[in-house]
């Protein structure tokens, strides 16, 4: 922890010193800094904080996966791999999609292994965007889509989603946002930060709009395995969607491998070829150690993964009940590991609530507006934290609300 904390602090100090930024490009300057950073800064200075602010599992990567990584290092597997990633890994990914969703992706040309899903998203945007192209992004959503679209020369067009609609993106709303410059639509369900999922029927309605307007779809399904009360529908499994979609997925959430940075994209051959072009000139290939871990995860990781999912499900029920009991109205998230309660009843903004909660009761949550304007009035509470800590955090939140 000390290493990374120090790092973060150095970055912050650097900015505070007010050193000249004359060499920094206008485009990068135009990107607002992530709203999460401010909380980093605050949390770093405090002890005894219980964090519900973390976007990663609290489980350590299962031992058999770590063991596979270690063994690969012992064998001296430290070289580059194919740009696309190790063939065995792509074959296993392909098999997964056939078994889970009945979709055929050719491991030779339709799957690209990347350094985390973040890289895959960046590649997808860079591969499809012409200057000025509009990309529809339903919000609240993961913080990197809009900046990545912007950096690729595109124009992100946010579409708000609402609690009344369980934070699902509606086909009508998407239709209304389409202009002649619209190139693609981003879907990210199960959703970070809301925990929302899309029903198959919702996706089918969207698919119709996509076809009518000849759009591409980038569907980030990294939380797909973390779906409760039902199963995940992969967007490209809908008829006619494979040709026009890029599915993004990875190992971070399902196999607790965030720091190993391993993700992938699956799509039609021309789209994957375009992404590979960018990938080979920037990242070259995903880290081989992580790829070896990925192979082990797909071969033998199902049991551990299901165990983790069952545990998340229990915590999900605990936190949703707890938040609702506190009077923070919380719709039931059906995926990922976040609850997204409303704090509108307190009259505070998300930011005020989160700052005061941190200062007064030492519980870290992320203000909802960080994930898009329509997230104002909400908090993201991650339940990827032990049951004991969840219960303690809920107790502290109760004390905080009572003190208002």
């Amino acid at each position, binding site marked *: *922890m000390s290493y*990374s*904390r120090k790092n*973060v602090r150095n970055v912050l100090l650097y900015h505070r010193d007010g050193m000249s930024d004359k060499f920094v490009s206008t485009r990068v300057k135009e990107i607002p800094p*992530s709203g*999460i950073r401010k*909380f*980093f800064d605050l*949390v*770093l200075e405090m002890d005894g*904080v219980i*964090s519900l*602010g*973390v*976007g*990663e599992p*609290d489980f*350590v990567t299962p031992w058999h996966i770590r063991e596979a990584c270690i063994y690969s290092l012992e064998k001296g597997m430290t070289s580059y791999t194919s740009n696309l990633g190790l063939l065995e890994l792509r074959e296993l990914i392909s098999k997964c999609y056939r078994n889970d969703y009945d979709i055929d992706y050719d491991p030779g040309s339709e799957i690209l292994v990347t350094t985390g899903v973040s890289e895959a998203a960046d590649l997808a945007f860079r591969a499809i965007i012409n200057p000025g192209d509009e990309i529809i992004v339903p919000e609240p959503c*993961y*913080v*990197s889509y809009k900046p990545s679209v912007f950096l690729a020369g595109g124009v992100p067009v946010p579409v708000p989603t609402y609690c009344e609609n369980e934070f699902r993106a509606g086909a009508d709303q998407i239709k209304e946002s389409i202009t002649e410059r619209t190139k693609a639509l981003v879907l990210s369900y199960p959703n*970070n930060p809301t925990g929302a999922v899309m029903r198959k029927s919702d996706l089918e309605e969207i698919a119709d709009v996509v076809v009518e307007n000849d759009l591409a779809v980038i569907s980030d399904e990294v939380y797909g395995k973390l779906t409760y009360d039902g199963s995940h529908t992969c967007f490209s499994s809908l008829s006619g969607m494979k040709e026009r979609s890029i599915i993004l997925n990875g190992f971070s959430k399902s196999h607790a491998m965030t720091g190993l940075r391993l993700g992938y994209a699956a799509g039609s051959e021309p789209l994957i070829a375009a992404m590979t072009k960018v990938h080979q000139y920037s990242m070259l290939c995903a880290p081989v150690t992580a790829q070896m871990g990925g192979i082990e995860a797909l071969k033998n990781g199902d049991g551990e993964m299901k165990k983790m999912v*069952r545990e998340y*499900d*229990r*915590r999900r*029920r*605990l936190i949703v*009940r707890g938040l609702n009991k506190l009077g923070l109205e919380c719709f039931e998230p059906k995926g990922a590991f976040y609850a997204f309660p409303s704090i509108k009843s307190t009259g505070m903004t998300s930011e005020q609530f989160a700052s005061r909660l941190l200062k007064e009761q030492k519980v*870290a949550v*992320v203000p909802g507006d960080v994930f898009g304007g329509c997230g104002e009035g909400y908090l993201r509470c991650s339940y990827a934290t032990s*049951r004991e800590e969840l*219960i303690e955090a809920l107790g502290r939140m109760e004390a905080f609300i009572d003190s208002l």
Partner: protein
Amino acid sequence: MKEILEIIENNPRIDPREIATMTGITEAAAASKIKEMEKKGIIRKYKTVIDWEKAGEEFVYAIIEIKVVLRSRTGYDAIAERIAKFPEVRSVRLISGDHDLSLTVRGKSMKDVAFFVAEKIATLEQVQGTVTHFVLRTYKEDGDVLFEKERSERLAVSP
């Protein structure tokens, strides 16, 4: 039912109210299911894993392998049950390989354990021979590691 067992396996002290929330049944139903499983012997007992050394209490453990001469008909069960009755014996298992039974024995000292084996076990009529392995250190017990646990090094806030 399996769900409840999974929840309490590593923490039997959890509040039935929480079990109810996590499994989506009522508190009363959760409590009665647990009672029922206790009655049926599915839940054998609730137990505490103690690091006695840390508590300042010295115990000596030994694994004893035993070769048994079988009497006709009674098989291994009779001799195993007989050995199991000694409170010094913590576990008795029938094993494959060179030996037949494997015991874990706990005593206050090495002498204590050695004499127990010599006087009470080796002297049994059916016991043909014993091999005693003293335990020097326990790293993992009942699925619980006894050395320092892995701690997550996560940043407190991340996207």
